[in-house]
């Protein structure tokens, strides 16, 4: 079933999956769609199937900065109770499909389905790790390493190896000026790690790109496997 393209839902127990499935609506998300609006109650929880989304910290609408990223490996956010707020904005940057569950229903299912509860809690743990290594990247690494990390993270979640990415978008995500991204793309291209054309970035040499990202890519990704790759019934 198509639902199983989401790694969290794939790990649900069969009984829980059967109860969870009817609550989901398949939606097609376009680039720029806002899934969560900062400082508002969460209306829906999304489980991407092949779209890729950003979690943005926003104080001034013109200058958001990306705090995290999620795709089919995860979910938009966690809601424990109906009416819970989000303090981030979430937008789609690579279009695709996702499963949408209304927040009140999700909150109820969380109390009824043990494997959903455990998997989403574990994912929340991973999200904190991802945010933490994002801080490390933003605080301690030059633009080209942060760009390399961002491209690797996007490629991990995108359905195709060629990413439909414009420089302006990455500049906004990394909170640098567009010319800074042009410069950083040039450095990555000079190492033959990527090929950038207008509106498209292709990863040519993933190992090289990981090398250019240095330690700011990798720890969170390894943490994901350690946190998530256990069956719900393993204690």
């Amino acid at each position, binding site marked *: 079933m198509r639902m199983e393209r989401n790694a969290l839902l794939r790990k649900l127990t069969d009984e829980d999956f059967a109860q969870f499935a009817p609550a989901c609506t398949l939606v097609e998300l376009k680039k720029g769609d806002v899934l969560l609006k900062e400082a508002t109650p969460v209306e829906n929880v999304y489980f991407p199937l092949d779209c890729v989304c950003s979690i943005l910290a926003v104080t001034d609408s013109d200058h958001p900065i990306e705090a995290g990223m999620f795709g089919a490996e995860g979910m938009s956010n966690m809601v424990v109770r109906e009416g819970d707020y989000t303090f981030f904005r979430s937008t789609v940057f690579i279009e695709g499909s996702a499963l949408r569950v209304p927040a009140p229903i999700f909150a109820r299912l969380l109390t009824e389905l043990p494997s959903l509860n455990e998997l989403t809690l574990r994912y929340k743990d991973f999200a904190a790790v991802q945010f933490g290594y994002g801080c490390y990247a933003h605080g301690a690494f*030059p*633009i080209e390493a942060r760009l390399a990390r961002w491209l690797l993270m996007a490629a991990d979640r995108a359905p195709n190896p060629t990413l439909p990415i*414009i*420089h*302006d978008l990455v500049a906004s995500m990394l909170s*640098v*000026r*567009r*010319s*800074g991204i*042009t*410069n950083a793309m*040039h450095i990555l291209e000079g190492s033959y790690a990527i090929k*950038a*054309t*207008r*509106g498209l970035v292709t990863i040519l040499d993933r190992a090289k790109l990981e090398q250019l990202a240095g330690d700011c890519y990798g720890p969170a990704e390894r943490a994901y496997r350690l946190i998530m790759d256990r069956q719900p019934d393993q204690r």
Partner: protein
Amino acid sequence: MSDTACANLRTFLLSVRSNAKASPRSVEPNQIGHIAFMARNVNGRIQTLPRFFLHQRHGGDLIEDIEGAEFADLDALRREAVLSAREIMSERLLKGEDMNNSAFEIVDEGGNVVLCVSFKEALPHRLGGDA
């Protein structure tokens, strides 16, 4: 492009802009050469802003801006170049790179150079710059 040519071009652009400011609705692309800074339309009609490409020259190395961006006027274009130069310089200076021969060469969609901004221009006076 030589410094003199850059200065001449800048003077020309400034005169273009003052004309455009005087009567924004009457400006036709052919009247002002290849640079048409359209006035922002406040009546909800389609806004047409020209696109510019901020190529970077670092010594003999040319970094092409393949996507470009839209700018409302010459001030906005220049401001972006100055702020970008400061950001790129701060990164490159940390690595100990020489920034003396770095500049933005900004071209319009026709490939014509409309503005040059050397990175040194973006430095405050007391750091030895021109800004």
